[in-house]
């Protein structure tokens, strides 16, 4: 990958929410890149800022949230400072989006065919008939049976899993090179979740689409991603190849996160637990944000904030790593 321009590059991204009681720093110094066709997982607990990162990339930050620093580059071109209309043209055409709840991302008043055809014709120079043929093909690809008939049905006539397939078809409609998928399987039952994950993985491979997959579910990450970024309190604390982050986590937060997941292949009387809870945005501790909950905290952690440092195959924001004292998994 050396030398090649990454498909997406995020450099030192900062997102702020101005409020009456001062400015809240929601994302701080977020840097990562996604190569063409790569699947990057972004994992973290509620409030870590993972969805916000996705929203910043597709230019859909809810006001008053705003990008206060850093830059986002799509194939080498800056997109974080584009005017609304230009960003609108990129959204859908070059970056597709899949959201958690398939019912709210589809318009209940239009047939799914109309929504697909509209999306296709907005971004691609095709006729109504060509767009319809393409829509049917997309629905077939996403595994919707009897696509020719179902294309004229409304979202409420589809089950949850089928709706999410329609949303995936919509995201792929204009052949974007990147899809931002925010918790695409969270609202679904386990058996349907497995279907949607394998569908997403297969389609992106076939179309050569890169994915930024935002989820709280480590299982989904393990099944789908090439690399993973672990977020905590608005920062990336560890990033690296999935297998390394899962089997040999370096950051104590990642270690705790992995240990707190009940495993299917071992018996433990008690789960490893991280005491306490993630800090609120208005009370982020000084130094490393994880230090009050960290079992391996020492003096430097309280005063100085660690950057992402090389830790074998992964990079982790932890002073223990800098000292060569790898945390014990």
């Amino acid at each position, binding site marked *: 990958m050396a030398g090649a321009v990454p498909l997406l590059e995020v450099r030192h991204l900062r997102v702020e929410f101005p409020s009456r009681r001062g400015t809240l720093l929601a994302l701080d110094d977020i840097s990562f890149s996604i190569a063409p066709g790569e699947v990057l997982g972004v994992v973290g607990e509620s409030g870590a800022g993972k969805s916000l990162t996705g929203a910043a990339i597709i230019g859909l930050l809810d006001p008053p949230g705003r990008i206060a620093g850093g830059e986002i580059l799509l194939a080498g071109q800056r997109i974080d400072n584009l005017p609304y209309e230009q960003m609108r043209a990129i959204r859908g055409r070059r970056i597709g989006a899949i959201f958690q709840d398939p019912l709210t991302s589809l318009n209940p008043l239009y047939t799914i065919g109309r929504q697909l055809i509209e999306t296709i014709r907005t971004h691609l120079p095709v006729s109504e008939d060509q767009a319809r043929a393409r829509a049917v093909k997309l629905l077939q690809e996403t595994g919707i049976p009897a696509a020719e008939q179902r294309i004229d049905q409304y979202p409420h006539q589809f089950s949850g899993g089928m709706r999410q397939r329609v949303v995936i078809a919509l995201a792929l409609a204009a052949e974007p090179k990147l899809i931002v998928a925010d918790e695409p399987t969270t609202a679904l039952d386990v058996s349907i979740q497995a279907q949607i994950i394998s569908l997403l993985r297969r389609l992106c491979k076939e179309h050569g689409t890169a994915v930024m997959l935002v989820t709280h579910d480590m299982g989904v990450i393990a099944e789908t991603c090439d690399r993973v970024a672990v977020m905590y309190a608005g920062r990336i604390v560890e990033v690296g190849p999935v297998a390394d982050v899962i089997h040999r986590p370096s950051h104590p937060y990642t270690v705790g996160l992995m240990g707190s997941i009940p495993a299917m292949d071992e018996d433990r009387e008690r789960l490893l637990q991280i005491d306490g*809870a993630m800090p609120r945005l208005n009370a982020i501790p000084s130094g490393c944000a994880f230090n009050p909950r960290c079992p391996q905290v020492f003096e430097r952690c309280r005063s100085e904030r660690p950057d992402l440092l090389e830790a074998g195959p992964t990079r982790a924001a932890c002073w223990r790593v800098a000292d060569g004292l790898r945390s014990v998994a």
Partner: protein
Amino acid sequence: MTAPLVEVKDLAKTFDVSAPWLNRVVERQPRQFVHAVDGVSFAIQRGKTLALVGESGCGKSTVARLLVGLYSPTRGSVQFDGKDTHGAADRAQLRLMRRRMQMIFQDPYASLNPRWKVRDIVGEPLTEHGLVTDAVELRRRVAELLLSVGLAAADVDKFPHQFSGGQRQRISIARALATQPEFLVCDEPTSALDVSVQAQVLNIMKDLQRQRGLTYLFISHNLAVVRHVSDQVGVMYLGRLVELADKAELFSRPRHPYTRMLLDAIPDIRMSGRARTPVQGEVPNPLSPPSGCAFHPRCPHANARCSQERPALTAVAGISVACHAVTEGRI
């Protein structure tokens, strides 16, 4: 073996989901019923945990509500410590029984009154059941309960919104424990929580079970969590139990094709390269369940018999399973 603490026999609950009377007359629509729970039987031994698993709409939460008396059953019975909970029992007796079983709900944001202080939330069962009348004693007991779930005694004067999700679920647990129940029905107690917080709550629940000898009915859709907390597991599909087995047996040798499918659907977090068969199809509409075995349209082992004759839950080698293919030895 001693008598089980909770025994459920042929429990069924039917909901009337018909259109309003006028529509039925004008549009000639028939009455419609959903058989949310249809002939479920199980027993839970004292101090043990039975987990019910299944996908949305399989009736597991309805079973939970039937057990604590939030719904009354259409058919069948629930016996608690040898007494029928829905029978002719007089009110005083029923009240006494209610005190001995409590429920923890899924969403700690919805199950706590936002206008009440923790003191009132946790103290209510104590005053309601007349266990404590003295204000000083009440304060002491509430503080004790909060400490037992890992909260601080000083939290009594706070409101629910001042707590995180995991702390709120601890408040729910403290409230449920107030009357010193023997049996707790937990309906997806950790589904709304983050994994690290889920671990905290699961650890507390296990500690409390050990200290107080509690009996749990644990409802969940997460098989990894179920494997961690339970002693016995019941798998439900469209209102019926399809498999009931000891935890070790169920996870090492799942018999029912649906159980196998559920186990296959769990994301492989250790990336062991375990082969997975893709899951087929979706849960059918409970308004018009398939004939015969409700799982047959999705089942890779279904034959003509499966689509006509509904299999009964039968004992096979120490476990119970409702599947023709298993009893015939086809799988």
